[in-house]
């Protein structure tokens, strides 16, 4: 009973975070700010949904497998976000004009 309610809450919460991440992807101005939305809200969204699936099974071993998957996403999401951001900046994608400071370009100008 409690488990079912918790699963339902996790399902709706996770789906909401996924929706928020995609709204952020639509509304934010440049690729770097979009990465913020995708790497944070997106990870939390799919992670919560995975936890809901693990919780619904009602088996501790399966729950821990889902938890391991969640931790795996938490480990990989910042790595791919970091790699993309570094690459995009290095190659020279412009930051949006509302950007107020860029110390990386100051220290490492484009050739």
């Amino acid at each position, binding site marked *: *009973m409690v488990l*079912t*309610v918790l*699963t*339902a809450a996790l*399902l*709706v919460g*996770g*789906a*909401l975070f*996924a*929706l928020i*991440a*995609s709204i952020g*992807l*639509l509304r934010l101005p440049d*690729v770097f700010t*979009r990465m913020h939305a*995708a790497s944070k809200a*997106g*990870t939390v*969204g*799919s992670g919560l*949904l*995975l936890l*809901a*699936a*693990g919780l*619904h*099974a009602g*088996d501790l071993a399966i729950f821990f*497998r*889902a938890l391991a*998957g969640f931790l*795996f*996403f938490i480990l*990989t999401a910042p*790595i*791919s976000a970091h*790699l*993309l951001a*570094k*690459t*995009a900046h*290095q*190659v*020279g*994608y*412009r930051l*949006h*004009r509302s*950007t*107020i*400071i*860029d*110390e990386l*370009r*100051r220290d490492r*100008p*484009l050739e």
Partner: protein
Amino acid sequence: MTAQALLDGAIWLALALLGLSFFATAYRVITGPTLADRVVGLDMLVGIAIGFIAVIAVKTGFTLYIDVAIALGLVGFLATVAFARFILSRKTADEQGALEPNQGAERGVQPATTGKGE
């Protein structure tokens, strides 16, 4: 019984929300404007697909779906890394839509603000 009804409602709501976010992200992937935006969108699409799989795992009761979701997460991570390497190997951001229409003239090649602090 009422808890089961709540769960069913939550599953349908979650599927609807995920569907909405799927379309929003797909719009971003299609419109771009740059390759990097599309890669971020694709990364997000993988995340949403994982969410779908997890919801379907709850709906059907097959716990094997969790392993599928984890495997998809691994593949998505590798795909994003590969795309990042690809962008790096192209060595250029010079493509159509890389700049917003009113952005290029203002900022030029070098960004206007490179100073310390404000």
